[in-house]
């Protein structure tokens, strides 16, 4: 069996579920003939036809709103927003409709849709193409926010997202699209949408991350290992609803925590995790929870991109700072 990339895993999950369930339908800009600008939907229009893999006019509000209409009629739309920088026109639809269709009709209608978008920096993309604003969605009631960080998790989580009866914002770290390959059996097995993944066990400190930064975090954990520090690494993955238990349990064991995310610091998802640790896990904390995050700035154009993107060194600095408390 060949190993595949994260973007291929997305494609594989879509193809699997479209074959299994003819209610699954894809829509977005350039998702058809072109197979998506990152090739996530490559070949699907050929396989499943033009009515199931729909190239839409250039209109993001339409894409989200149309998905809501499709979903209310019982289909399972998977809509693509070409880059997260263009997702903001959908927020009105997500907040005012998708996230509350079930609630406002007392369950009469619902909204089993997925809104996929590549996000994050690190590939030297043009302006507006590199931001990470998952935190905005994490604040919205009634939806789920999922961020895979490996081919295996992309496959399993996307299947789960499509099958989930409620709206899911599915954000794909584009820096990881082709960063690594894994053997991803095409067996249709979904992963749970309500637990974090502990990728590495450790006893000295808990490192919590998601998306592309997970990989920097794993590298940091390796370095720490060389230095005799045993770091536990948690991939949050299902950002909302948040599985705080897994994180709390880990910190109960380690007493220290560093949260790593790419998006801006202020009111980032890291703030929520840190707040909950301080609320429910205060007594276990041996050191203040540190957040290693993007700055509260505009993501710079790519010449300075790597100065914005955080790296292993910044994570290690925070870890050492944390370990300094005794």
């Amino acid at each position, binding site marked *: 069996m060949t190993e595949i990339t994260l973007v291929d895993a997305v494609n594989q999950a879509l193809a699997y579920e479209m074959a299994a369930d003819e209610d699954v*339908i894809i829509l977005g800009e350039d998702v058809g003939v072109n197979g998506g600008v990152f090739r996530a939907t490559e070949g699907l229009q050929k396989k499943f036809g033009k*009515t*199931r893999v*729909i190239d*839409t*006019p250039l*209109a993001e*509000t*339409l894409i*989200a*709103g*149309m*998905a*809501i*209409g*499709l*979903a*209310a*009629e*019982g*289909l399972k*739309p998977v809509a693509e927003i070409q880059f997260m920088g263009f997702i903001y026109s959908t927020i*009105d*639809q997500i907040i*005012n*409709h998708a996230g509350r269709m*079930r*609630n*406002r*009709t*007392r*369950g*009469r*209608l*619902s909204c089993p849709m997925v809104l996929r978008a590549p996000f994050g920096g690190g590939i030297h993309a043009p302006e507006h193409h590199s931001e990470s604003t998952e935190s905005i969605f994490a604040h919205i*009631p*009634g939806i789920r926010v999922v961020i895979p960080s490996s081919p295996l998790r992309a496959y399993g989580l996307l299947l789960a997202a499509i099958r*989930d*009866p*409620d709206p899911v914002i599915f954000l794909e770290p584009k820096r990881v699209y082709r960063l690594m390959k894994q053997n991803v059996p095409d067996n249709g097995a979904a992963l749970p949408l*309500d637990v974090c993944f502990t990728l590495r066990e450790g006893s000295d400190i808990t490192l919590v991350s998601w998306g592309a930064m997970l990989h920097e975090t794993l590298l940091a954990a390796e370095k720490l290992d060389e230095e005799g520090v045993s770091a536990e690494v948690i991939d949050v993955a299902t950002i909302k*609803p*948040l*599985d*705080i*238990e897994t994180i709390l349990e880990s910190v109960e064991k380690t007493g220290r925590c560093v949260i790593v995310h790419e998006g801006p610091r202020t009111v980032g998802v890291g703030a929520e995790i840190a707040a909950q640790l301080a609320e429910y896990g205060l007594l276990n904390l041996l050191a203040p929870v540190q957040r290693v995050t993007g700055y509260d700035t505009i993501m710079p154009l790519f010449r300075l991109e790597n100065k914005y993107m955080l790296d292993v060194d910044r994570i290690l600095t925070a870890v050492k700072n944390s370990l300094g408390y005794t």
Partner: protein
Amino acid sequence: MSQIIRFEIGYTQYVNHLGEIVQDLPKFTYDTNSLLSLYRMMVLTRLFDQKAISLQRTGKLGTYASSLGQEAVGVAIGDVMRPEDVLLPSYREYGAQLQRGVKISNILLYWGGDERGMCFSDAKHDFPISVPVASHAPHAVGVAYAIKYRNEDRVAVCVLGDGGTSKGDFYEAINAAGVWQLPIVFVINNNQWAISVPRNIQSHAQTLAQKAIAAGIHGEQVDGNDVIALRERFSAALHKARNRNGPSIIEALTYRLSDHTTADDATHYRSQHEVEEQLKYDPINRINALLRTKYNWNDEQDNKLHHECEKIVENEVQQYLNTPPQPLESMFDYLYAELPRELIKQRQKATRENKLND
């Protein structure tokens, strides 16, 4: 410069504001009952409306948006739609909703601050009232796409106001409906006002029907106080959509006789004179006049019909007033198909604190 393409916008009226027939009536009017049924629904809608306003004034209902003067639009829509079609209404289409089996008590519940109002069992595919103006237009595209995808014999009908036509959502939706030639009818209830903003500030377009040209779809204007014209043109548009001959926009020219909602005071921004002028065009008086002159309708029959409608409204109001509130927990119970752990905790806490503080 050479002229390469030409467009025209049409207008339809059958009965003028004096109840006079201005062109041969369409066939459906040959059956007195079908006319009477339109009339009856308009009366019912208005009686309901009056009741709702008085409930609001006496503190038994929240802010309410009246459909006074615009009853013909909703009623005609409801009349031509089939049960399996899908209505995506704004907040002034009670006439359509009632025809489709939505209970008056449901509508009252909604404006009475209770989500169960939008959980109606009869029109079970219909969308809830859309408060964010025009935001339901893209939903109609999705619904119609689903219908086409499954090759069903159904139509989506999306209703919005003159103000709603200024929103990008509306435009993106009509444009997409054109691209896929979807089975949709967009109805513009042009009641001349968007709260205090008059029609001419919404757009420099001479008609709102011509917005259709931007999407390459059919658009036309209808006298929105002439229920016969509305019924006939809606029927044609739904027929067209049903036969996969493409979407339409129908602009119904009417007038909002009431304040925007019970929270509004229209004397702030429009003259009493203007409103009085418009009373002449009342859609109910017009059909009443026609019924009397052409269909031998008399006072006795009219009183009876009013009385029946009043009874229905009264019963529904009682039903509404007797509905106990939902438990606090209901705010959690329809958020997700299955409540996530984090929210189970919040739900428990809410229950606990509610008990504590009661």
